[in-house]
């Protein structure tokens, strides 16, 4: 019996390993197959779902990519915030030092009390506190938490923020209790014959 020499002849199929071409076709991944949410076959789906099929795996795949875009956008927004802080830092570095300014005469502030003044700008409210005959202290009146006005309680040695129960040490300005994250900015003072002068602002993080 003559053997057909062609490799894909029916008689030689098993001997040569020749197989139907569709045997090597890549199987579709189960996740790649569009399916309805209830899992039933397409021919048993209602007409509206056959008309408007939704590929749920593909839909979720795109949603993850959208989330990635959102993350990159957020990352860009954070860089913009950092750039704004850096710009403010450069502006502040070029700003001239605040001028020397007379606040009051010593006799204008009774012992154990305080007066309000503005320094260095007309909207920067500060406190000048007199704790004894010769000790004057001055701080910004804005709480470092949310900028409420702090109240000096000289008898207890604290400055109190009534908004959220924040406390600062009267003698150092340090934040000692409550939500304030930083000490109060301290106003540098100079005592002269004709009164008490503000000469600068010292901000600190500890």
């Amino acid at each position: 019996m003559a053997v057909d020499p062609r490799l894909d002849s029916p008689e030689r199929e098993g001997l040569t390993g020749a197989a139907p071409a569709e045997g090597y076709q890549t199987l579709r991944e189960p996740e790649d197959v569009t399916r309805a949410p209830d899992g039933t076959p397409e021919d048993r789906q209602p007409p509206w779902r056959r008309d408007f099929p939704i590929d749920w795996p593909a839909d979720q795949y795109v949603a993850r990519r959208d989330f990635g875009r959102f993350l990159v956008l957020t990352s860009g927004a954070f860089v913009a915030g950092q750039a704004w802080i850096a710009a403010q830092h450069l502006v502040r570095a070029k700003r001239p030092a605040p001028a020397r300014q007379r606040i009051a005469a010593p006799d204008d502030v009774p012992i154990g009390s305080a007066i309000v003044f503005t320094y260095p700008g007309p909207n920067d409210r500060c406190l000048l506190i007199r704790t004894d005959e010769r000790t004057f202290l001055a701080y910004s009146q804005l709480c470092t938490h949310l900028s409420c006005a702090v109240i000096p309680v000289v008898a207890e040695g604290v400055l109190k923020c009534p908004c959220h129960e924040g406390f600062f040490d009267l003698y150092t300005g340090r934040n000692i209790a409550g939500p304030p994250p930083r000490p109060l900015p301290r106003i540098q003072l100079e005592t002269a014959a004709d009164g008490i002068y503000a000469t600068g602002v010292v901000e600190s993080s500890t």
Partner: protein
Amino acid sequence: MNELERPRTRAQRLTIIYGILCFALILVVGQLWLLTATMNAFLAGNGAIALPGLAASAACLLLNLGLYRYLR
């Protein structure tokens, strides 16, 4: 067909995307911490870390953009 040239399945692509998203999320959380710390220091009168903070945050953004290339 070469093993490396075989197209990735959706499941494999999803694994890669999950990895990319995890990296991007970690970078964004790091940037949030950096922004908070920089703002706190700036308000306390210490603006010296503003420019290094900007550089670090911009580096994170570049990394995120590099990762994002694989998501498109």
